[in-house]
């Protein structure tokens, strides 16, 4: 971004004020790493968005199969006038670039098309299923972080101890186990054998959902002070959340452990110890802070994937979230719905990455200035 030597501002911009403004902007650009990062990331985001829309377009428009027949049925599709009217209605008779243009403009207006499975707009479906996944994901993430961070830290500090090895085995088990299998076994033991929690869904049969505010039943029921519904919703959430948290715990615990190990032998930690600072304070203020960046990245990615629903766990528990919607529509070749889910998921990913990058820069000055 620096000016080439020999070219003065006057030659380049012609007007003194603009030179002044330009140099100010340049200085601002160079000295505000955070702003620079936001601008660069926003640019990357636009490119990524373009890529995602192209893929979704290809998926919805070029997948083998006759969309007219799929939508109207074989009989109607064979009547030329009906076919023509349908194609004109949805712009299918136009050249591909024009069709893409129509597609993107409808996307930007929040129109994701119509699901053939539910016979509703995909956007409406997502509006219903997304809060359910967020609720489940947040609880799972909370459980995983609350256990994995301290245990990862302890494993790193007590490296090589029996506790470390035991935690290592538990975490390895967490990442090596298919979640749908743990879910089924959990369903069998906890729900069927001992009857501790209900098996599926978000609420007991016959129970009315709380008035819609966020779409998350736990929060909505608390908002109106309906503790019975809150308890019911939580009761339905807990087992799938724990199953989801097992895999997350495995990743986070191992990650925290190795991130802490990377920094724990650094000189500044030794110095802090030599100064006689209390151990817990060193661990939290010095060690964990330095290990924070990689942990944040992983948590961000996992968070994004949870927000877009866990396909497997939601399927096992018949939990009506985005993940289950994705697998059901995929199995029924409901292309508009799959494309809609993909776009939603990609947007969540991109936005989460964006936020994580910004947090990065806020936490770690090296990222900001480097």
């Amino acid at each position, binding site marked *: 971004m620096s000016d080439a030597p020999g070219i003065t501002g006057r030659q380049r911009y012609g007007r003194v004020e603009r030179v002044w403004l330009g140099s100010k902007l340049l200085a601002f650009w160079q000295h505000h790493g955070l702003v620079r990062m936001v601008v660069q990331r926003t640019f990357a985001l636009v490119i990524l968005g373009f890529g*995602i829309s192209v893929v979704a377009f290809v998926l919805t428009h070029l997948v083998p199969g006759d969309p007219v027949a799929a939508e109207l049925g074989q009989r109607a599709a064979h009547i030329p006038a009906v076919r023509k009217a349908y194609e004109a209605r949805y712009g299918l008779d136009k050249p591909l670039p024009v069709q893409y243009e129509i597609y993107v403009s409808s996307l930007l207006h929040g129109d994701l098309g119509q699901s053939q499975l539910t016979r509703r707009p995909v956007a409406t479906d997502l509006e219903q299923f997304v809060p359910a996944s967020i609720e489940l994901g947040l609880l799972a993430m909370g459980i995983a972080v609350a256990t994995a961070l301290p245990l990862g830290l302890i494993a790193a500090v007590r490296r090589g101890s029996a506790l470390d090895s035991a935690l*290592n085995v538990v975490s390895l088990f967490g990442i*090596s*186990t298919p979640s749908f299998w743990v879910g089924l076994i959990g369903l069998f033991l906890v729900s069927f054998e001992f009857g501790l929690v209900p098996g599926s869904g978000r609420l007991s049969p016959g129970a009315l959902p709380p008035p819609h505010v966020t779409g998350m039943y736990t929060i909505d029921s608390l908002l109106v002070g309906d503790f019975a519904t809150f308890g019911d919703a939580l009761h339905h959430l807990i087992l799938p959340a724990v199953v989801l948290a097992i895999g997350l715990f495995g990743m986070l615990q*191992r*990650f925290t452990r190795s991130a802490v190990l990377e920094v724990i032998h650094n000189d500044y930690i030794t110095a802090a110890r030599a100064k006689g600072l209390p151990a817990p304070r060193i661990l939290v203020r010095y060690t964990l802070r330095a290990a924070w960046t990689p942990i944040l990245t992983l948590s961000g990615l996992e968070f994004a994937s949870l927000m877009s629903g866990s396909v497997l766990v939601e399927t096992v528990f018949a939990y009506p979230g985005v993940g289950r919607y994705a*697998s059901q529509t*995929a199995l029924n070749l409901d292309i508009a719905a799959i494309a809609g889910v993909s776009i939603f998921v990609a947007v969540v990913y991109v936005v989460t990455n964006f936020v994580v990058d910004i947090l990065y820069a806020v936490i770690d000055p090296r990222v900001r200035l480097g």
Partner: protein
Amino acid sequence: MPDGSASNVSGTLPGRPGFPGQPDHHHRGRRARSPRWWRTLKSTPGMALIALGIVVAWAVVVFLTPLIAPYDPLGQSSATLIGPGLHHLFGTDELGRDVFSRVIWGARVTIPYSVLVVVISVAIGLVFGGVAGYFGGWVDGVLMRLVDFVFSFPSIILALVIAAALGPSLRNAVLAIVVVSWPTYARVARSLVLSAMHSDFVTAARLLGPSSIRAMAVDVLPNVLGPMVVYATLGLGDAMLTLASLSFLGLGSQPPTAEWGSMISGAEQYFDKWWLALFPGLAIVSVVFALNILGDRLRDVLDPRLLTS
């Protein structure tokens, strides 16, 4: 994410000394206080050896399947939903098929196809990552944006979409997993190539003026392959989990083929018959667990960065 997927990031295993050939002063005091059984367990290479044993055992199963399985995996009988016993070690399913034989035959589906996934993905990753790292500049930029793009979808959702668009079959599931997994290897290969390129001996070799391809193959590639083996080992476990997951959802192997994921899916309706889901699941866990331990161990041996910490 720095490089590779989350499962590739790990610490160390028990029993590994801080430095090879040096006493581990750090833990001496603690070790003296630990119980005897624990010391014995730690002094043996233990877990890694067990893991190797499990992997070798499964490899034997893959090659000698017909000799090990007592029944035809597809052979139905009137003895349906019998619990585990002498005649049927793991019981029978709703069609009277022997679960043990089906688990054994399932190894012939999951293991070879997962290996295939990893081999193809590593090959693509090596080519793309190698080219990106070696040539740099806009080639690097374009290839890495492509990688970022694939990374912006959770792998299971992307695999789901691809498998659904292509039609549910084992072959398409393999294809879908390759599409979602090559970028990980490409990223790793790129960073390995970059660091190899900056080492003095490669610079010296390049000064002699060989062609790009020759320089890549002779000087850079050998330094990349070793670490790639580690990632491939860890990736193999992931590939198995994803393949089983797709089959579980009905997008991979189709019935009546005996495959672990689809066996668990079939068990969903009979979940009070615990043996239907338990044994195929244990099969998956045992292989993936063993592969992860081996991968960790290989990584500890091959990654000098961890030894200095």
